[in-house]
């Protein structure tokens, strides 16, 4: 450790530079210089090593870029891949802009932080300029007296030769500073106490909140606290929910039928199917329009399993679904229209019910198409069938058929 430092004040930049060169030529080593601005040539004069902040910046940029590239790839192609407009999941060209921005951000912020750390600049640091006016228009040069053979007089001559304004010898307190130790120590201590107090308070608050959340979370099955549930629960009434304040609680009157709904008053059993077959007739006339409609409905709803030709070779049946029996050969040919209607409405064995999917008229028209596939002529017994159906009340509301069995 040096015993003393020589602090020299200059009023011109050129004087400072010349003095540094003179001092170094004379064998003394300046330990630091102070200036109100970045003096061109000061770094070389003092022999300062180039700062390594450039390396920091470059490495941080690469790190930021790599991390952001990996993150984009991971979110877009690994964690939750979503097909957006058919673009490839690993959309490297599209990832470039964000990679660049992240690189710049990480590099910039990191370099500034590195600069502050390297220069020991931080809020609350007491400035330690050796002479007043450094930030205004004065320059200073610090030379450490390293050994006993230090020639102060020679140094003074050299400094004066280059325009030194003030030359002082000082005993350094801590570092280059010349703050009064007593005051600073007291101030430092009370500030440290305050910081410690603040830290403890924050830690306590954090622990308390963690414990509170842990204790208060309770039943895991219950929905947790929601932040901003603005669209989670709609305030509008739902169509088929019951609400006490609405007339009849918003429930439909008993026995309400949907529009164009025809309840089929037969049990959904094999006996019901055969009964329907005996009692129902196809009410739809077999004109071209109806057959075409039936063909269109068949192609949309039936051909997937039954095949376009009715032979049970539809796409679904070929891919593992149990294939239905043929519609154009065997038992289907002998089944009356009413039985077919029952089967379409309620389903049978592996075939699901289509009563909710197709209106009654469409179901009858499909049967016309099936008959055509079977090669039978479609019998246009429209009026006769209508009457006989009405007498059997197969398509009428339940009001007139109270004595019927409890059928859906």
């Amino acid at each position, binding site marked *: 450790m040096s015993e003393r430092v020589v602090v020299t004040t200059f009023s*011109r*930049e*050129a*004087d400072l530079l010349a003095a540094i060169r003179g001092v170094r030529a004379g064998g003394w080593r300046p330990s*630091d*210089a*102070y*200036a*109100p*601005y*970045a*003096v*061109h040539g*000061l*770094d070389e004069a003092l022999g*300062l090593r180039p*700062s390594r*902040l*450039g390396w920091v*910046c470059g490495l941080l940029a690469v790190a930021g870029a790599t991390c952001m590239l990996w993150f*984009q790839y991971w*979110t*877009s192609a690994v*964690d*939750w891949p*979503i097909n*957006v407009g058919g*673009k490839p999941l690993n*959309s490297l060209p*599209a*990832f470039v*802009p*964000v990679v*660049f*921005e*992240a690189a*710049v951000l990480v*590099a*910039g*912020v990191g*370099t*500034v932080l590195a*600069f*502050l750390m390297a*220069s020991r*600049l*931080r*809020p*609350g640091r*007491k*400035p*330690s*300029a050796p002479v*007043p*006016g*450094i*930030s*205004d*228009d004065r320059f200073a040069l610090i030379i450490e007296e390293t050994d006993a053979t230090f020639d102060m007089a020679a140094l003074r001559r050299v400094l004066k030769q280059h325009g030194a304004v003030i030359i002082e010898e000082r005993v350094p307190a801590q570092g280059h500073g010349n703050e009064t130790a007593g005051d600073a120590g007291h101030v430092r201590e009370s500030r440290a106490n305050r910081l410690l107090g603040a830290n403890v308070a924050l830690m306590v608050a954090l622990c308390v909140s963690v414990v509170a959340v842990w204790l208060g979370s309770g039943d895991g099955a219950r929905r947790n606290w929601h932040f*901003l549930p603005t669209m989670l629960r709609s305030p509008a009434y739902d169509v088929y929910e019951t609400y006490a304040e609405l007339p009849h609680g918003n429930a439909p009157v008993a026995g309400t039928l949907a529009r164009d709904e025809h309840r089929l008053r037969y049990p959904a059993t094999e006996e019901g199917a055969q009964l329907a077959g005996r009692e129902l007739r196809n009410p739809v006339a077999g004109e071209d329009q109806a057959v075409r409609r039936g063909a269109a409905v068949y192609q949309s709803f039936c051909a997937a399993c039954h095949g376009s030709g009715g032979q049970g070779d539809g796409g679904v049946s070929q891919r593992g679904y149990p294939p239905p029996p043929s519609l154009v050969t065997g038992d289907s040919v002998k089944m009356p229209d009413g039985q077919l209607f029952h089967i379409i409405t309620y389903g049978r064995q592996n075939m699901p019910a289509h009563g909710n999917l197709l209106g009654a008229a469409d179901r009858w028209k499909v049967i016309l198409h099936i008959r055509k596939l079977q090669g039978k002529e479609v019998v246009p017994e429209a009026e006769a069938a209508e009457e006989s159906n009405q007498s059997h009340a197969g398509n009428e509301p339940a009001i007139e058929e109270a004595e019927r069995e409890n059928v859906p």
Partner: protein
Amino acid sequence: MAEASIVWEDSRAEPVPPPLIAGDKTPGEVTRDVCAPLERRPTGLWWAALSVSVSVLLVGAAAVTYQIAMGIGTWGLNRTVGWAFDITNFVFWIGIGHAGTLISAILLLFRQSWRTSVNRSAEAMTIFAVICAGLFPLIHMGRPWLAYWMVPYPNARGSLWINFRSPLVWDFFAIATYFTISLLFWYVGMIPDLATARDRAPAGMRRRWLDWASLGWDGSARTWHRWETVCLLLAGLATPLVISVHSIVSSDFATAVLPGWHTTIFPPYFVAGAIFSGLAMVLTLMLIARKVMHLEDYITQRHIDPMCKLTLATGSLVGLAYLTEFFTAMYSGNPYEQFVFVNRAWGPWGWAFAVMVACNVLLPQAFWFPSVRRKLIAVFAISILINVGMWFERFVIIVASLGRDFLPSSWSSYAPTSIELATLAGSFGLFFTCFLLFCRFLPMIAMGEVKSVLREGRHGEGGHT
């Protein structure tokens, strides 16, 4: 000294350029001149200007509050013209911000010492412009309170991530990065000046905040060395950042399929236009500031002249871009592209197109003439009109293209509501309020940098190499 042929040598001698800073200033005088406005009470003119800008800001704030509470229906947007004032204003303000970075960063890399008088204010202008710009994407969301969903944080919705392929997402990262880096660059550059102001301040509130903000800066050579390195590094980062940010903003349009938007010229076109409008805004602010704050010695013709020339250069680039767009459409044979340009000039927004061409292409050509560059009133008027023209350029690009798209049945007109006009005015109110507060509380001129380009204290010729 040769006696014969003295004539040749004299005529070949380099003329001494006028000093950058007039009035033969010493570093001490620089300190006093720049710190004086911070230390005295603000003038009546400052208070008047502040009250006007704060009033305008409050009107804008009221309009925005109403709009967020009531919804985007308070704007004049419709199904076809889905973007109008909101995105026009966004691009306008971001563009203005870019010139600040140009002056701080790019001119630093090119070692142009004349930047030292204006770079601090230009960077401040960038910060405030980016703040104004960033408000518009925020308020144009249907649910601005959910804006944090733009950040890709692990969440309870899956985690549901953002769509990194969208330019709107790129925008978010670009603007956030640009704001952060500009803020850091501005602040780091200001630390030595804050130290200067700190050392002059008597004990009190002002001294305490300057103490805190100057981070204990002491002027050590090593710290200056690192500071210069950081400034150079940030300048090196900020330069491609400027280009990337406005290119990303332009891809908001360029990646759409709309005729008039879907063109690869947009990134360079927008960047040139941004620097153009930003330089005009710097000129406007500098001419006001030097008059009001008595800084005529620091912002001299040696600063105004190169800025006018840069404005002319970028304005001509913008004019060239207009011609290129037009030629590309014409040469393409694509009837939709061709119609876009017919529509821009002769359609319902032809008046806006005329303003745009007159202000952006024709008017800056006046800067060819040194007499115009020296007449500061003319420079001031031209700079304001340039910004008007640049606003209309973004308006024409957005609204005229949207309002006349591929399908004539979608064609629609657009008119702004009072809310949108108030919001636009409010953004100017915010900008000028921030700028006036900056002039009052922070050193407007980079003292440290100006001192290093004074001729005082140097052997031989001045000028920073």
